């Protein structure tokens, strides 16, 4: 295969990948788009084998078979709620692969020696650095999402200094690698330093990010894994790596921007560890002594608050108990607001059941999806799709926010910060300015949350103090929903 033919084929395959991605902008064509992208990668592998004349290198097939088996097992077994950590994990292994390609290219193993040695050395080192930062950063992110690591930001003494220092060392190593061939053991020094320091850097930067900032972090790591691939491609002169890596890098960056805007956070704040929960409460998972209690709360007892927050008296619950049924039966328009709590309780199927009943009673049901509901961009949509909720009923925040005023009933399931009106009014809170769903404007509000503790941002929700038209159903969302459904039947 001549290099002209090779370049043309690479260009065509890049266009095919872009076509595949553009098809992913609509549900109807998305499946085809994904298949086109996958098929392009398959063709690219064959082209690579032909172009390098390495069809007979048997070990390639052996290694790929192992990868196919492991990757296939992941793809089939993973649960939809585990998608964020899976994506994080895959980002990490992608970064590892790019870093290894960088290492081999720096050592001059398995590449056709070219004339641009300085460029190859610098890009190799950069590929190692970005790849390994992606690896450890992603593993930490996956660990946090999978609850293997604490959700709270871990902040060391001199954390910023360590990060800044490692960053400077990494930049200097990249510059040094340009001259490393002329210095004895220069390549080895560049290799060892870049490996150790980038592994440390990735770990240090990710460990400081809190659980709720994960949507942003994994978007960023997604971008980095693409950039690592592109730079590894520059090192080994592989056009497809460069173009596809660039596309992935751009997409990750775009998603990062969208997430930052939706959470009202600047990327800099997250990377420098200015998490809104420094030292404050971040209630995640179940608190043992509340599990037994939680469901009794519905009868009107004071809520067991935590030390820092005054217990909120739940008023008017007695009244609401009697009218829940009537309100829901007579509702003509309902907006359901799902949050990560719904995912934790695995309540999406019950949500669907409730929606079906309400629709059978003549109500129009919509779902309002906040951009950062869940633990990765678009996570809530996938969970609801899993429960067979038609995607036409899923509305983005901007499309549905004005409808709350005219809505009879808003049902919140496991969401807190994204419905907190304090974001509009309370200037001194960390969530001030964050776009929120206007749940408070609905006539009747049902909230099926685990407890009344503040959400991840640590800000009390004034919505809970409302005395009219508020129905709190505390406890596991599954139980609460079952209760409502039982009443309606």
């Amino acid at each position, binding site marked *: 295969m001549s290099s002209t033919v090779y370049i043309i084929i690479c260009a065509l395959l890049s266009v095919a*990948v872009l076509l595949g*991605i553009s098809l*992913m*902008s609509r*549900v*109807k064509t998305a*499946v085809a788009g*994904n*298949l086109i*992208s*996958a098929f392009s*990668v398959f063709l690219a592998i064959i082209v*690579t*084998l032909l172009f*390098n004349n*390495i069809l*007979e290198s048997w*070990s*390639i097939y052996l290694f790929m078979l192992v*990868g*196919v088996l*492991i*990757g*296939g097992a*992941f*793809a089939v077994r993973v649960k*939809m709620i585990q998608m964020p950590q*899976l994506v994080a994990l895959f980002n990490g*292994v992608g970064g*590892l*692969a790019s870093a*290894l*390609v960088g290492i081999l290219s720096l050592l001059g*193993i*398995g590449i056709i020696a*070219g004339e641009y040695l300085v460029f190859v050395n610098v890009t190799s080192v950069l590929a190692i650095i970005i790849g390994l930062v992606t690896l450890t950063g992603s593993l930490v992110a996956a660990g946090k999402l999978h609850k293997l690591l604490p959700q709270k930001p871990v902040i060391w003494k001199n954390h910023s200094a360590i990060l800044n220092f490692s960053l400077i060392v990494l930049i200097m190593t990249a510059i040094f690698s340009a001259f490393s061939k002329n210095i004895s053991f220069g390549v080895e020094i560049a290799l060892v330093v870049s490996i150790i320091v980038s592994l440390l850097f990735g770990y240090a930067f990710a460990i400081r990010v809190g659980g709720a900032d994960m949507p942003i972090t994994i*978007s960023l790591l*997604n971008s980095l*894994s693409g950039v690592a*691939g592109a730079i*590894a*491609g*520059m090192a*080994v*002169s*592989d*056009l497809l*790596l460069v173009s*596809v*890596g*660039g*596309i992935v890098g*751009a*997409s*990750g960056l775009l998603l990062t921007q969208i997430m930052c805007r939706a959470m009202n956070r600047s990327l800099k704040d997250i990377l420098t560890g200015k998490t809104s929960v420094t030292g404050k409460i971040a209630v995640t998972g179940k608190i043992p002594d509340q599990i037994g209690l939680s469901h009794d709360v519905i009868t009107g007892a004071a809520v067991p608050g935590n030390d820092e927050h005054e217990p909120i008296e739940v008023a008017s619950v007695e009244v609401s108990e009697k009218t829940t049924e009537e309100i829901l039966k007579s509702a003509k328009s309902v907006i359901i607001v799902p949050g990560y709590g719904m995912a934790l309780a695995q309540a999406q199927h019950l949500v669907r059941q409730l929606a079906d009943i309400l629709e059978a009673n003549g109500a129009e049901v919509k779902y309002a999806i906040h951009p950062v509901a869940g633990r990765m*961009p*678009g996570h809530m*949509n996938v969970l609801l*799709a899993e429960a067979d909720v038609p*995607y036409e009923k899923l509305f983005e925040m901007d499309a549905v926010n004005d409808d709350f005023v005219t809505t009879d009933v808003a049902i919140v399931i496991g969401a807190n910060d994204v419905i907190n009106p304090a974001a509009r009014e309370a200037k001194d809170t960390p969530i001030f300015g964050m776009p929120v769903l206007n749940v408070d404007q609905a006539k009747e509000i049902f909230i099926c949350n685990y407890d009344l503790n503040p959400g991840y941002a640590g800000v009390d929700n004034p919505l809970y103090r409302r005395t009219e038209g508020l129905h709190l159903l505390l406890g596991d969302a599954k139980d609460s929903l079952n209760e409502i459904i039982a009443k309606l039947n």
Partner: protein
Amino acid sequence: MNPIFLVLVFIAASVVGYLIIKNVPSLLHTPLMSGMNALSGITLLGAVAAVGLSLIAVDSGGRLLGQLLGGIAIIAATVNVVGGFGVTHRMLKMFDKKKKKL
């Protein structure tokens, strides 16, 4: 290959990619991300070339290291590609199946 050409390709691909991806609605952001994730395993091509070339190289000096590191790279990248596309396909089919029912 000329470095300037490679850098230009990188910039062009990023810009075009950015513009196209902007059209994807947030409804599909999770599948988009896992699809992109799969594509980042494209580095598989580099790993394949490295393993292949080091296996058939006349100079056997770096063969063992090439097979070892390159082999891990191929496995990691293949997991990324196969797992990524596979799970994206699964997700997208969940969105699509209602279409047939309605």
